[in-house]
């Protein structure tokens, strides 16, 4: 930041020297520019205006760079907060999946509330993948939804292998996302 300010000052000094040297050269080449008081005043005024314009351009550039830097910092904070929210959702979803898998292992039907929670969180976390009809994420969700709508699911006592496999795949997707989120948040912080 200090370096940034020093560079700015230097730019102003350099631009001032350039305008000054240019003014001197022009006046040497064209002495009539200082022939009397009104002409001299006009000439000096023109050079001052030229320097003013350059000064304004430099300041504008500096302000733009500062605003970009502020924007980048705000973005970092936003991503860090989003990462924390995502991490919480992942943990919540994984806990719900454990409940669902435990129900299957015990030979019980998976409670509808658990299935709702899994599909809601999974859809939230992988909302982009859900748009793609060929994605495995979309298929996993459909397996879970199919189980939740299936009137045979609670009555026939058969192990819902496909649903269990889908739950395990969802858990793996979540683990992968958890790793990516953790790395990203660490990098940002």
């Amino acid at each position: 930041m200090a370096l940034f300010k020093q560079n700015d000052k230097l730019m102003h000094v350099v631009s001032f020297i350039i305008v000054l040297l240019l003014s001197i050269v022009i006046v040497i080449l064209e002495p009539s520019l200082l022939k009397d008081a009104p002409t001299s005043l006009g000439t000096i005024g023109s050079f001052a205006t030229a320097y003013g314009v350059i000064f304004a351009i430099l300041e504008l550039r500096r302000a733009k760079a500062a605003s970009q830097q502020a924007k980048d910092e705000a973005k970092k904070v936003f991503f860090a907060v989003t990462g924390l929210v995502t991490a919480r959702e992942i943990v919540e979803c994984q806990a719900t999946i454990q409940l669902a898998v435990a129900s299957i292992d015990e030979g019980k039907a998976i409670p509808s509330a658990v299935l709702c929670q899994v599909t809601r969180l999974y859809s939230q976390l992988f909302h982009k993948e859900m748009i793609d009809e060929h994605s495995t994420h979309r298929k996993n969700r459909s397996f879970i939804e199919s189980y939740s709508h299936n009137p045979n699911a609670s009555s026939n006592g058969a192990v819902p292998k496909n649903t269990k496999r889908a739950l395990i795949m969802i858990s793996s997707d979540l683990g992968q996302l958890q790793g990516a989120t953790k790395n990203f948040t660490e990098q940002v912080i």
Partner: protein
Amino acid sequence: MIPKNLKTFINQVQLETEKGTLAWSQADSLAFFCDHKNHTLHITPFYDDDRGYSTYYFRIVTNGKSSQFSVRDDEEDDFSTMRHLYEAVIISANNVVNDISNFFD
């Protein structure tokens, strides 16, 4: 019964399933589903032991909005339509046409 305004749709689903345009996957307990664009179709047969009747459940899920209808075996025409659709779905999910393509070679 099949809702009136969905009869053409169900026939079209069967046709497209037979043509191979729609791909179905097998879920658990005789259920099948098909992900297509932003829609997911679910079909499940159910036999009620206590009452002694069969039912096909069909569900259309679009962007989280879910609509279901069911067809019982006393609704002969509709039940037959659903049975044909279900059979076409099994063939699609198991990729039978591909499996038997070299059967007579």
